[in-house]
């Protein structure tokens, strides 16, 4: 594995580009252009910005979580341009691999990855496949994770995958508590840091991830399950619109 092509949005694009470069990969990137205010992308200098994906890429990454429309356009383009044997690894926390596969002509090359802001700090990465995904592609995805110096584990194909789903629901609950005036953000974080074994306070954790990405996971869970428990806390939605303050 030598060359990867990364499409997507901030901050995943930068996080993955940096990791790939650090492992000696040749990195091509194409940031989404119409993703609103999040355009303050500062890409590593060695990442080569491209307009179109190179046909010689060994692997393509699609890292858009906050817009299914853009994600779909990116995947369609990657599927069109890449040679048939090229694997496409797509962040699958805001939709299933199955749904994304229905958008492209060669769904067998599509593998899901639990790409979520700040989660690369861990040593384990979640992968997912649909029933159409072939073994060769899943193997290529696992190999890519190994190149990044991490381990992978394959989970079932489901919106939110495992960790993003659990963490976003904790963040959402903290926002519901704040909405109800249970305690201010700083106190909720203090209580959770001292009273549980969590690595971060939930409000601070939501800030690290970015409210937009948290919202995207909750919206996806709500859309895929149709269950009331996944509705977003109004205060979290407002935070998305205002940006973190």
């Amino acid at each position: 594995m030598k060359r990867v092509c990364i499409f997507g949005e901030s901050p995943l694009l930068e996080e993955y580009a940096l990791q790939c470069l650090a492992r000696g990969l040749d990195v091509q990137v194409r940031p989404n252009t119409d993703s609103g205010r999040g355009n303050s992308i500062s890409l590593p200098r060695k990442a080569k910005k491209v307009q179109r994906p190179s046909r010689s890429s060994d692997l393509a990454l699609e890292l858009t979580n906050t817009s299914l429309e853009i994600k779909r356009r990116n995947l369609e383009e990657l599927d069109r341009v890449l040679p048939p044997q090229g694997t496409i690894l797509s962040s699958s926390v805001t939709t299933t691999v199955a749904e994304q596969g229905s958008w492209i002509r060669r769904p067998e090359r599509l593998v899901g990855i639990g790409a979520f802001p700040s989660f690369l700090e861990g040593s384990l990465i979640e992968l997912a496949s649909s029933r159409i995904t072939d073994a060769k592609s899943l193997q290529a995805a696992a190999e890519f994770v190994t190149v990044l110096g991490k381990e992978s584990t394959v989970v079932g194909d489901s919106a939110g995958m495992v960790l993003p789903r659990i963490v976003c629901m904790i963040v959402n609950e903290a926002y519901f508590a704040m909405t109800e005036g249970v305690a201010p953000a700083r106190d909720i974080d203090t209580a959770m840091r001292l009273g549980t074994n969590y690595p971060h306070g939930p409000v601070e954790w939501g800030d690290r991830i970015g409210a937009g990405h948290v919202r995207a996971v909750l919206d996806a869970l709500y859309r895929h399950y149709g269950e009331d428990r996944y509705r977003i806390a109004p205060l979290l939605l407002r935070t998305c619109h205002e940006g973190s303050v």
Partner: protein
Amino acid sequence: MVKTIGIVGAGTMGSGIAPVAARAGFEVILYDVSHDVLKSCMERIKADLRKLTEGGRLSTTAATEVLSAIHPRKNFGDLGHADFIIEAAIEDLAAKKEIFRKLDAIVGADAVLASNTSSLSITAIASLTRTPESVAGMHFFNPPAVMKLVEVVRGAQTSDRTIDTVCSIALKLRKTPVVCKDVPGFIVNRTARPFYGEALKVLGEGIGSVEQIDRITREEGGFRMGPFELMDLIGIDVNLAVTQSVYEQFFHEPRFRPHPIQRMMVEAGTLGRKSGKGFYTYK
């Protein structure tokens, strides 16, 4: 100025809080209905203090002082000498209401009554006293000697003065008080619900296995323990009881709904570490 702290109940929490209070320089009246419970509680406290002195973390003189400051009592009326009460009895609303009604009759007019409840309404507990403004929640975490947090719960009628007193006692016990409103589960037990609830949903839907979900939360997420390891440690029955209590008190809010897996495990008697088998098997 609070000088004497009365503790109601010498179970896990009461016996943990007593030495913390004694080490902070308070006289402690430790009440329990059962002579046996009091006796084994004092044995446990002695053993813990011995460990501290042997490890060089506490002088023998200090340990003797701590021990002599804890007065185990079987007579409820003796609690009347305390100016600050921490109730750590059984987690049952009717039982707690009865204790507070009795406390109300024996303590001085300025005494503050705090409950260590983790899931019951402070407002309801306070309702049977003549001075609900002097009742607040003071929720320690287990083990009280180690855990820094104390949730200070403001009931519907709790006064600012009472909250200030509870916070200042918590600080003297070298804890970090966090004030919160009287809502089901307060801050921690409420905000932690999804850690278990979503993990159980993910397991129930076959998205990941017990070992896999635990590993993901630890190695990808940086949690010290995965949800299933933690439920085994807490006790599946205890965890289900907290979830159920929060769920009922929120009038069946779907975010807090317990999972059938939990109930099935309780029915099977696989309650976690204490029964040798839960999500994992222990030998």
